C-alpha cells in the first residue's frame, strides 16, 4: 500500500502553474504604499492574456498584488472576500488591517505548503491603517516578511537593486511613480514574461486608487541594436 507516497489526493495537488503573472513591485512612500504590476497572463512561453488585473483591494485598508498562478490568485481573492465579509458582519467598528491580512494569508500559504498542495503565488500586501504604513510579502512556501520595499519574482533581481539605491521614505507620489516606472521599464526590457501594459495602485489613509492601464515608452536606439551583426565574432 503506497498510500503514504501517492494517495488519492495526488491528483488534486498542484504540480506546476499554468497561467502565470510576472513581477509585482511595491514600496512605501510619504502618504502610503505604491504598487505596480503589468497585466500579462502567460501560458508557458506564450503571452496569452493581456488584461489580467493583478492588483486588488482587500477591505478598507489593504491592497494585494500577486504573481504566479492566476487561478490560485482568484481562489485567494475568494478567501479574502469571505474574510472581509465576516469582518464586516461583526458591525462593530473594528476592521482587519493590512498586517492582519498579511498574517492570515501567511497561515493559509504555509498550511497549503505543508499539505504539498501550495497556492502557487508570491503575494505582496500593503496598506495604511490609523496612520501606520504596512508592506509585507508572502510566498508559496509560507516565507513572509515586512520591508520598506518588496518585489516578487524577477522584480527581486531587477527592481530591488534600483530601489536599494533610490528609495527614500519621504518620496512624493510623483517621485514614487517615476521610480516605479523606472523599475517596470527595466523589467519590460529584461523579463520575457513582461508585457507593456501596466497598472499602478496607491493606497493611503484616505483609500485606494488603481490607475487605468497604460504603456511605458521604451527606447531601442542603442548602438548595439542599430547594426547588430557588426563585429559578430563574439561581440557579446
Amino acid at each position, binding site marked *: 500500500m503506497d498510500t503514504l507516497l501517492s494517495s488519492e489526493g495526488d491528483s488534486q495537488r498542484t504540480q506546476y502553474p499554468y497561467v502565470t503573472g510576472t513581477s509585482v513591485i511595491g514600496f512605501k512612500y510619504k502618504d502610503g504604499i505604491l504598487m505596480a504590476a503589468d497585466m500579462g497572463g502567460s501560458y508557458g512561453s506564450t503571452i496569452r492574456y493581456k488584461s489580467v488585473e493583478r492588483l486588488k483591494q482587500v477591505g478598507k485598508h489593504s491592497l494585494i498584488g500577486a504573481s504566479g498562478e492566476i487561478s490560485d490568485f482568484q481562489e485567494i481573492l475568494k478567501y479574502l472576500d469571505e474574510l472581509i465579509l465576516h469582518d464586516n458582519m*461583526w458591525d*462593530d*467598528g*473594528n476592521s*482587519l488591517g493590512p*498586517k*492582519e491580512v498579511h*498574517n492570515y494569508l501567511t*497561515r493559509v500559504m504555509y498550511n497549503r505548503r505543508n499539505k504539498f498542495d501550495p497556492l502557487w503565488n508570491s503575494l505582496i500586501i500593503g496598506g495604511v491603517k490609523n496612520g501606520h504604513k504596512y508592506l509585507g510579502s508572502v510566498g508559496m512556501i509560507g516565507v513572509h516578511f515586512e520591508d520598506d520595499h518588496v518585489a516578487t519574482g524577477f522584480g527581486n533581481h531587477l527592481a530591488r537593486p534600483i530601489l536599494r539605491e533610490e528609495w527614500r521614505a519621504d518620496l512624493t507620489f510623483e517621485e514614487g511613480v517615476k521610480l516605479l516606472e523606472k523599475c517596470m521599464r527595466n523589467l519590460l526590457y529584461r523579463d520575457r514574461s513582461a508585457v507593456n501594459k501596466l497598472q499602478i495602485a496607491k493606497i493611503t489613509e484616505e483609500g485606494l486608487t488603481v490607475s487605468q492601464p497604460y504603456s511605458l515608452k521604451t527606447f531601442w536606439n542603442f548602438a548595439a541594436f542599430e547594426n547588430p551583426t557588426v563585429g559578430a565574432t563574439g561581440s557579446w
Partner: protein
Amino acid sequence: MFRNQYDTDVTTWSPQGRLFQVEYAMEAVKQGSAAIGLRSNTHVVLACVNKANSELSSHQRKIFKVDDHIGVAIAGLTADGRVLSRYMRSECINYGYTYEAPLPVGRLVVQLADKAQVCTQRSWKRPYGVGLLVAGLDESGAHLYYNCPSGNYFEYQAFAIGSRSQAAKTYLERKFEKFTESSRDELVKDALFAIRETLQGEKLTSSVCTVAVIGVGEAFDILDQETVQALINEFEISGEDATVNESAAEQAGGDAGGAAPDQGGAAAEAAAPMDI
C-alpha cells in the same frame, strides 16, 4: 407559585414568557462574592472580594488574565467562570496566531454571549452560573463589559456584581461621571472604596480583596498584596469610621428585606431580569 411548574428545564417557557432556569442562573451570580469594574478613557480596573472559606484554606481566584489586553472578574459558580476564562484565553490565542493582532474585546464579548445563549436553548444543557466583568483595551479605547448567564452583554462605565453589590453600585453611581477623565490611581482608589462598601463595615485589607489594572501601555496585571495594602493605607480606605458602618448596616437590612419582595414583585410584573 407558578414558578415551580415551568422551571424544570431551560427549554420550557413560563406563561409570562420567562425562562426560569436562566433567571435562577442569574441568582447564582448574585450569591457569589462581589466583583466590581470601572473604566476611564485609558484604563480599566477590576476588583473583587476574596473571602476564604476558613482560615485553613486559600481563597478562590476570581480574576483571570485572558490576554495582555483583556482580563475578567467573575461572580457566581467559580468553576463555570474558570471554564469560560479558558475559552476566552483560547480565542485570544487563536486570533493572535492567525492575525498577529489582539482580539478586539467587543468581539470576544459577543462570542462569549453567543456561547452562553446556546446553553439557554438546549434541553441537555444548563446555563453558566457565572457573571463576567470583562475589562479590555482595543483600537477604540478602554472597555468594560458585563456578560450575563442569559447571553446578554452590556457595556458599562462602572458596574458591580455579586452579593452586596448594590452598595458598591450606589457608590459608583455617585462617582461615575468623573471616571472618564480619571487617572489610573484615582480609578484604583475608587475601586477600593467601592469594594469597601460591599464589606459592610468590615475592615478592608489586602487579604480580603484582589485588584487588577489594564491600561494604555500597561498589560493586564493583578496587583500584589503589598501594593494593594499600601494603596489602602495611602487612601485610608480601611473603613473604620462610624458613618460607613451605619449606612452599611442599613444596606444589609435593606438587602435582606428587599430580596424576598423583589423576587415576588418581579414574578408578578412583566419584566424579567434578563431583559433589563
